[in-house]
């Protein structure tokens, strides 16, 4: 077969193959999109369907009739308000402590040579490799009345009575911060790594002290990472269950604990669903605000 006959087979002279090329492109796109199909199916079955079902349940009263009873009760009973307030308080304080601990840590890591930083990052990520339950129980072992900290503290004569370190707000916060910290450090570290070191050198050569250079150059450029980390931690905190249940000792009731109670103790799926829906809506609002905030920060440029 000669080359000429290959050209002949492609179509009559003057055909620019536009239709065929378009079809090829469409086929390629569909092929690529089909790779997402299994994940899409999974999300539909495990997320959208149950959430939609709960959403529906929240609008039914105990007799199965359409009503806003669960939402009305949420507004009427002050205990619900307290639960939401506790949830927001804990989420907010946890996020704040994570920022205070995580920002310097991420800064330190970002200034290390890459190899050393990777090693340190393993230390940051180590907790991810052990089960959440194990870690929370470990805190219980450390913090309880006859735990390690109280035993040693009293032996050393630092205090005489066992301190109430756990089964309260403080214990819950300690556990939650420990679990959430990596979620703060990771996005911060990524953003900080991307900040060109020459920017700080340039600031110094122009006459700015290291502290001034940090606040005028480094900190503004790290804000997108801070917004990402903070919103991630805050949203994860809103729906947290295990740690407040175990370290809060029943005194710290977050929304998720309340949902569990509604279902396990009162078999009230409608009330639980309504709580879930409200929590979901609040979470979405927070995420939207955070996205807008970080986009605003991104406007001022987050590297190139």
């Amino acid at each position, binding site marked *: 077969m000669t080359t000429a006959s290959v050209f002949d087979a492609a179509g009559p002279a003057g055909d620019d193959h536009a239709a065929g090329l378009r079809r090829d492109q469409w086929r390629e796109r569909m092929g690529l999109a089909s790779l997402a199909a299994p994940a899409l199916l999974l999300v539909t079955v495990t997320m959208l369907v149950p959430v939609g079902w709960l959403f529906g349940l929240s609008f039914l009263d105990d007799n199965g009739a359409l009503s806003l009873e669960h939402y009305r009760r949420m507004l009427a009973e002050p205990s619900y308000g307290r639960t939401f307030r506790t949830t927001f308080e804990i989420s907010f304080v946890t996020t704040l402590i994570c920022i205070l601990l995580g920002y310097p840590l991420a800064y330190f890591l970002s200034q290390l040579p890459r190899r050393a930083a990777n090693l340190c990052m393993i230390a940051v990520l180590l907790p991810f490799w052990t089960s959440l339950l194990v870690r929370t129980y470990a805190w219980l072992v450390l913090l309880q009345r006859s735990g390690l900290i109280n035993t040693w503290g009293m032996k050393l004569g630092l205090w005489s009575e066992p301190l109430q370190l756990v089964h309260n707000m403080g214990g819950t916060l300690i556990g939650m911060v420990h679990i959430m910290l990596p979620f703060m450090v990771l996005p911060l570290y990524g953003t900080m790594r991307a900040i*060109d070191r020459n920017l700080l050198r340039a600031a*110094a050569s122009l006459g700015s002290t290291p502290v001034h250079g940090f606040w005028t150059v480094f900190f503004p450029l790290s804000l997108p990472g801070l917004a990402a980390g903070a919103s991630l931690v805050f949203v994860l905190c809103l729906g947290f269950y295990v740690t407040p249940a175990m370290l809060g000792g029943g005194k710290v009731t977050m929304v998720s604990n309340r949902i569990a109670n509604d279902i396990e103790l009162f078999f009230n799926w409608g009330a639980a669903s309504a709580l879930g829906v409200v929590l979901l809506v609040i979470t979405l609002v927070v995420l939207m605000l955070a996205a807008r905030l970080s986009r605003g920060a991104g406007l001022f440029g987050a590297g190139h």
Partner: protein
Amino acid sequence: MRLAGDHERPRDAAAFAPSSATALPITVRRLSKAYGAVPVLDEIDLDVRPGEFLTLLGPSGSGKTTLLMAIAGFLRPDKGSIRFGEREVVRLAPHKREIGMVFQNYALFPHMDVARNVGFPLRLRRVPAAEAARRVEAALEMFQLGGFGGRRIDQLSGGQRQRVALARAIVFEPRIILMDEPLSALDKQLRERMQIELRQLHERLGTTTVYVTHDQREALTMSDRVAILDRGRIARIDTPRAIYDDPGSRFVAEFIGESSFLDVAVADGVARAAGSTIRAGNLPTRQGCCTMVLRPERLHLLGPGEGEGMNCFDGRVTGAVYQGDTLLLQAVLSGGSPVALRLTTRGGEGPPPAPGTPVRIGIAVSDTVLLPDEAQGAP
């Protein structure tokens, strides 16, 4: 509004009076820095004269950037002294050194607009807002960026960013300017235009300038003097012409310009290379050998009867490359040494000599440069 890139060059010289009267010399003494056992700076002595444009040139790893960073204060040397004028600065923090610095990747603050970038050093020096605004605009004007103050950095082209970086580095009238390969990210045409602009800027401001590059042509184009670094030491420091005409060592000859090398044997006061007797200004009197530098553009293709006042060699053409303005002719001499000739092309020439054609190649005695044999010391 004037557009950046306009060829007309407004000179807002009133705002930037030449400061050569106050230009500072830089004195570096026995400056050393090692990473582990590897020395990057090896007892460097360097004098930058007041108002001079000095280029540090060298291959990567030669220590040129390290030296610049030490002068800027971003790198702590192991020992040695750096003085700006009379002032010892080796332990002074970078922000106290009053240096205008231009970085390879511009290092503009992406979260500030052009005016805030250029005004940054003025705000730090508490210059009143109105005066600062005037000086920022004057600096921008000088780089054909008048009216660009409100632009975001990511709206600028590479050349414009480079100009903003320059404006920012000079707006506070530093007495020393350091530049770390500032043009390497620009395309060739823009780079060549900026070389000339930078040179003109320097002539106007008269600020002592240390410039780092690995591009020898850039170094030759812009500098008053060039310091060539080799493995943490200064191999040669002199004017571009002096270095080009008499490299003094094989390393420098190889690094600056293109050259072929020819082994020269000296016996009884007669030097011979590739079958010919060599005449040269600095012919060694002792027995031994040295190396002859053959710059491609200084070699001539000789016709019959030509070659008066030249060292002549017989050879054979091995190839020719047409490059538009020049014809690069490759040949081997009778001893087997390869040489290259760069011949200026003219209209109406015939085709280049075919491979295998015997040719006579000549170099003027005054262009003949001999390098000392490095194993044996001076010729």
